[in-house]
């Protein structure tokens, strides 16, 4: 009864009003053959107290970033999430409302999305943003679909330095879009503009990261130019937390800017839920997937917000829609807005600077050979002299998770470790990492 209110007397009276004598009658139209004639074979119901004990026990068997000194990044970044973010997400009205189909009931959600769209446009230097995509991988597939519809072309170019999971998702869906995927290998840890330009010939779009998966800074302006020059949509996949320090994609001519929002205001939470963002130049707005909130007025001339350009969407356009998405990641996007509002422009720059500076300091302090001698942001790849996977296993026994093993996704990088620094780590933490790496025999080969 915890979540329902149907007492026996309610039930009897209601069945009476319905005009049936039993609940079973309501299911009479279900063919006998497909009725389940037994109780579901799942564990017995738990009380809230029992459930809580069970979940705490499960959670206790996870080694989170509070229980291990962690230098893991690789697409999910352990930045500090301030309490205001969680407080806002727990406001019941924002938490339990749904898509604002009825704007008069949902001005709060709509205004928050409008403010979020503005923040994303400001970060990326773009004109328009949607209300969020699922995550940093699916927005890449979205970008391909936009490019397919916009250019009519059928090839997707992706830099190999782009997050492997993003590339995997693009490969999964491209065939359905009628597109093929071409990958441009890295050259010394970054993407060579000329090789990229060559691949872009006749392509619908070209996706490159900034910073890239190795932590290196790409020659983003040149890559964007290479794509645009070939008539392909230039798509930058960026980390919002770098955009107080790094140039905005809009400023170097990208058609679309996409990325994973987690680093800006979401807990890492074993991979989700988070939000993906997708922003574009104004000319592409009619091809964008997902919700877009626009400003308008009510009959008394008061400002209000509504879902706009819904003619792009599945519930109206059906098979001609710009996407099949409906439920998106609004709550996480709003968390992002709260976080970015908490940071402000100065805070954003300061966090970026802190990560950057700590990473530079760590490079020197660890004294291990860099896989690529390139400018980086908050991550860098080092050679550990032995399989990175072994180094990680050994280091974790000492309470330190030294980073991500690039060999998982890149040929010939079995001894390469991707180390990530966020503002939550300190110089002392870096000393500890150096100590542990030495102890587990990670040495300059």
């Amino acid at each position, binding site marked *: 009864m915890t*979540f329902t209110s149907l007492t026996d007397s309610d039930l009897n009276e*209601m069945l009476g009003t319905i005009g049936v004598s039993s*609940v079973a*009658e309501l299911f009479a*139209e*279900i063919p006998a053959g*497909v*009725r389940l004639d037994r109780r*579901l074979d799942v564990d017995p*119901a738990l009380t809230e107290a029992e459930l*809580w004990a069970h*979940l705490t026990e499960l959670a206790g068997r*996870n080694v*989170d970033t*509070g229980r291990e000194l962690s230098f*893991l990044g690789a697409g*999910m970044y*352990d930045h500090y999430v*301030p309490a205001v973010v969680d407080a806002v997400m727990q406001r019941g009205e924002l*938490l*339990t*409302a749904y*898509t*604002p189909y*009825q704007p*008069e009931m949902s001005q709060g*959600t709509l205004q928050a999305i*409008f403010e979020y769209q503005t*923040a994303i446009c*400001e970060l990326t230097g773009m*004109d328009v*943003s949607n209300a969020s995509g*699922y995550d940093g991988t699916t927005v890449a597939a979205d970008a391909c679909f936009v490019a397919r519809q916009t250019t009519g072309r059928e090839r997707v170019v992706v830099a190999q330095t782009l997050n492997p999971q993003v590339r995997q998702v693009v490969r*999964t*869906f491209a*065939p359905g879009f*009628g597109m093929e995927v071409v990958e441009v290998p890295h050259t010394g840890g970054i993407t060579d503009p000329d090789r990229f330009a060559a691949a872009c010939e006749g392509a619908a779009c070209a996706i490159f990261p900034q910073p890239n998966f190795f932590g290196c800074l790409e020659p983003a302006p040149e890559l964007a130019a290479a794509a645009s020059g070939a008539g392909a949509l230039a798509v930058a996949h960026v980390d919002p937390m770098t955009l107080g320090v790094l140039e905005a994609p809009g400023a170097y001519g990208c058609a679309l800017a996409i990325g994973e929002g987690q680093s800006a205001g979401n807990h890492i*939470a*074993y*991979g989700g839920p988070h939000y993906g963002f997708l922003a574009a130049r104004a000319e592409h707005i009619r091809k964008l997937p997902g919700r877009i*909130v*626009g*400003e308008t007025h009510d009959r008394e001339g008061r400002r209000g917000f509504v879902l706009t350009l819904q003619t792009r969407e*599945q*519930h109206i356009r059906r098979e001609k829609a710009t996407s099949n*998405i*409906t*439920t998106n990641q609004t*709550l*996480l996007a*709003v968390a992002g807005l709260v976080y970015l509002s908490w*940071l*402000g*422009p100065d*805070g954003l720059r300061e966090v970026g600077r*802190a990560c950057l500076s*700590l990473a*530079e*300091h760590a490079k020197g302090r660890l004294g291990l050979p860099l896989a690529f001698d390139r400018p980086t942001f908050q991550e860098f790849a080092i050679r550990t002299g032995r399989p990175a996977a072994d180094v990680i296993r050994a280091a974790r026994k000492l309470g330190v998770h030294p980073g991500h093993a690039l060999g998982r996704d890149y040929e010939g990088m079995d001894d390469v470790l991707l180390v990530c620094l966020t*503002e939550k780590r300190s110089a002392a933490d870096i000393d500890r990492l150096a100590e542990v790496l030495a102890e587990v025999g990670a040495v300059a080969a």
Partner: protein
Amino acid sequence: MRLIYEKSRAGRRASRIADPGVPAADVPAALARRTPPRLPELAEPEIVRHFTELSTRTFGIDTGFYPLGSCTMKYNPRINERAVGLPGFAALHPYQEDDGAQGALELMWRLQEMLAEVVGLDAVTLQPAAGSQGELTGLTLMRAYFADRGEDRTEVVIPDTAHGTNPASVAMAGYTLVRVQTDQRGNVDVDDLRGKVGERTAGLMLTNPSTLGLFEERIVDIAEIFHSAGALLYYDGANLNAVCGISRPGDMGFDIVHYNLHKTFSQPHGGGGPGGGPVAVRRDLEQFLPVPTVARDGDTFRLDHDRPKTIGKVRGFGGPFGVFVRAYAFMRMWGPGLRDMSEAAVVNANYVLARLRDAYELPIDRHCMHEFVVSARVLKREHGITALDVAKRLMDYGYHPPTIYFPLIVAEALMIEPTETETRETLDAFCDAMVAIAREAVEDPQMLKDAPHTRPVSRLDEAEAAKRLLVRYGFADHPTSE
């Protein structure tokens, strides 16, 4: 109210960031940002007030009755919110090694098992981010399945009652759409169907109960038609809340099923998300599921990436883990009682239906499942009052309107889904309001046309929004209002 940017003042801020105490580094000048993003500048108190006020301008389940058909707006247990906040969940890195994530993996594995039992299928992937992505994943699995068998099938059949995501997903999956009609009883027109299924048919996408809230009476024959043509059946799980523990898609003959964890299993809708759209499949489709899957070896659990025939990935990592925690918690609290949950949902829906059938037109006279559709067609014809007018007027009575104008085959449709978590008193008061509105339509139609009268804003001009396309704040150039 003002936008947060309109409250911003240069030099204010909420955050303080510690100096890392190491030499300051910078990026190459050529890559450095020139003009900073104009993010809001406010102290923390103003941020809290801003979002608190926004929340009071939003109607959620916590505010009141939210019978938004097809969306299953049920109460979201608060214990689930406490659970996702556990550091062992919230601060766990997805690249943590399996031996450091046993609790999370066990939770995911157990959730897979429960979900499989509920639909009567063999294997589950939790990865898809929402129902519509579940659909695209399911269709991509179909492609892989037929490709593997060397069959070239290009068509997917969809009833005219289908939700918009179905045809959209079909198109995005590269399939050709074939439409099948609905018969007088609201079932798929089986005769129409036979002619449309053949060797080019990859499969069927069906919602059951349908978007009319009716159980597909001939589901067994339908399954037979597709299977004998070598095609597959896809179950759109949006309406699963009607049949948990009562009837299982797998037993009905479906080969692929998606769930909406944010509907049936109570992940809060968050103003539009997040959601969760796991997909279950029959044993012989398991090999194509996205990587990683969660596998069990005795007492330990691991992420399995080594699946040669996988379709790849449809989303990052293992999926929206926080959504899994909530869905798992919800299912554990119900246990086998999930059947009682669905029964209560169906009783509530039929009760509201019984009370409204005289005031509104019922297109098809059958018992409904967890939701039903009535039409305002008569009100429109006789008094010019549309489903939209009824919806707007309901706001004045303190209710969120039902889903309207869906499904498309019902004119002036009002799709009402009370869910199992509402009290009888709430349902009665809502029915009284609906009946009163039908009366108002006769007595004072203009008042309905002008509704709502009690919200922070009156009806908003959507045409103006589409014309101006003001989709972000423009700072100095932004048109001033209010």
